[in-house]
């Protein structure tokens, strides 16, 4: 709990962060930057867990633990995503999302 800052300000920041991530994911053309956007979304939700835990239920610690889980899973997911992107690059020699549109009807 930080003196002088209420939960509303922090939640506003995390919501902004979340939608920046969504916007980035929908508009970036590069797979790597799309991956970065996903990280933003995950971070926003992780911060949310911590903040709500600290401000509303200070006697518990579940929210904090959960954010640690999210960080661990995000790391694993990033490793996987990068591996996929590298393989894709071998195949199409590009990391642009337009070049991966062959999986359709």
């Amino acid at each position, binding site marked *: 709990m930080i003196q002088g800052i209420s939960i509303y300000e922090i939640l506003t920041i995390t919501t902004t962060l979340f939608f920046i991530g*969504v916007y980035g994911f929908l*508009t970036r053309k590069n797979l790597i930057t799309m991956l970065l956007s996903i990280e933003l979304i995950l971070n926003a939700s992780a911060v949310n867990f911590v903040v709500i835990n600290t401000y509303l239920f200070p006697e518990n610690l579940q929210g904090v633990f959960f954010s640690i889980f999210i960080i661990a899973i995000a790391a694993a997911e990033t490793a996987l995503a990068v591996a996929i992107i590298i393989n894709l690059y071998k195949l199409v020699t590009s990391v642009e*999302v337009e070049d*991966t549109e*062959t*999986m*359709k*009807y």
Partner: protein
Amino acid sequence: MDFTYTILIPLIPLAIFLLLGINYNKIKPVVSGVIGSLGLFTSLSLSYYTAYQYYFVVGKVDGVYQTFVQKWRWMSFTDTLVIDMGVLIDQISVMMLIVVTTISFVVHLYSRGYMKGDPGYTKFFAFLSLFTFSMLGLVMATNLFQIYIFWELVGVSSFLLIGYYYTKPSAVAAAKKAFIVTRFADLGFLIGILIIGYYTGTFDFMELTNPEGAAITNWASTSFMGLSVITWALILMFMGGAGKSAMFPLHIWLPDAMEGPTPVSALIHAATMVVAGVYLVARLFNMYYFVEDGYALNIVAWVGAISALIAAIIALTQTDIKRVLAFSTMSQIGYMMLALGVSSYEGHDGLGYMASMFHLFTHAMFKALLFLAAGSIIHAIHSNYLQDMGGLRKYMPITHITFLIAALSISGVPGFAGFFSKDEILVAAYEHNKIIYFISLFVAGLTAFYMFRLYFGIFWGKDKTYEHLPHESPKSMTIPLLFLAFMSIAAGYIHFGEYVTADHQSFEVHLNYPLAAIAVGVGFVGIIIAYIFYKKPNELPNKVSKAFGNLYTWAYHKFYIDEVYLFITKQIIFKRISAPFAWFDKKVVDGTMDLVGNSTVATSKKIKGLQSGKVQDYAFAFVAGAVILAMIFIYNWII
């Protein structure tokens, strides 16, 4: 007395059918012939043992023949309407066991010679066993449904055996024709069975044929179009019987069925399967006789008489010897039917019933002999046609003698089996209905004439010069001929009145000398005319046939009955009835279904662009959905 062991009589041929049918590529032909014959010999021995037990040891109690039933419940619809499987041992079923196993055994022996070298030898014996199984099951059936099941099974085996030479288009067509015509007739049979089941509540022969039973005494309860429903059911069931027994006008399949191998014609289309209709009427005789004063029985008599007459007239003109024999079979079965039709129930009045069964028995012997002898001739000269034959008596002495015996027997010459049975039929007809009597007397003369036309045409007549000198058939074929020739004489001396009667009580049968003399006289006239016409080749037959003019042409074309059927099916049923239905089915029914399918395809073509392959499109759709859902939640629950 326990007759449970009789269940083995049909089951042994079934086992052989399965054995030969499953392994038919592995078994050597010689072995399969031996297995088939030995298996049937076992059935034969069991049948004779059963007959001995039944007729001479346990069957008769206080002068009345008992019926022994052994049955197992198969399925039940209500408490009384049940279907059993089992064996029924009574006078006619035991007699039929003798007929079927004897003829089948003889045909098995004969086929070992006749079918030698045929590529489908093992298959042939497998089918023969299947047929024997079905026929034995038919004669021992305990209820209408069981008889119907085996009735169809004999139809199938007949179909398989007629189409045995399946590379020949005519054989295939004949097999189909036989199956379709008899199946059509069996439709009547099935409806009859269902009516009986609905109104009387039972399928069991013992309950149905009991003269004091509910099925017969309550017949008047319901009537339909002027007749009681039971009479209608009996008429419909007789339609099934008429189809199987080749009665007019459902006889058209029988002449074509001669495309099958000749032993098959002897077994199925002369001696056993075609008398199934007679057997059915005899089995239900009490119903036919007691329900509504024998209205249905009268129909049986007239159909029999008309068939006998028409078949005999057609037989005069045919030149294919097997077809002549086929029409002769039809004519003789007509005799059996009319004898049943003129019969009464009690004591000596039941003469017609006994005569019919007697004629069935003797006819099986001499007609099987005629067919097997014809097979021997065909085997020797490789033709079915009378014009390719002549003077064969020098080359085939045994066939000649046995054929002569059979011809004398069927013509009713005294001393031969056919004389005794035919005499009883004529007496029964004379006592009941004079018109039918004169028809059958006339047919007797025609029978003698066409049989001796065949005999003189084949064995005397012109001395043909043959490319390959015909020779007598091997022993495996002549021994069965000799055995049947013996039976064609001996069978007449059995006192049938002792063993097979309508009311299960024996009565004494006497020859009626004046009637017998008339019949013999008519028969001799037929033989003499045939002698004058065909002993030496001359112009007389041609002149006479010209004198008959149109009648001869009509008879030669079998009174155009086949053409009438073709016209009715092709022009009326196919064109006028089936074609509009087919149009409706194709356009309306199929059209609706096609519309559903086609519109689905069109819709999916339109919307398949949604699956674009762009990850961000999907993500956008997901986010948009989530946002919309969130807005709905907020609107509903928070504001």
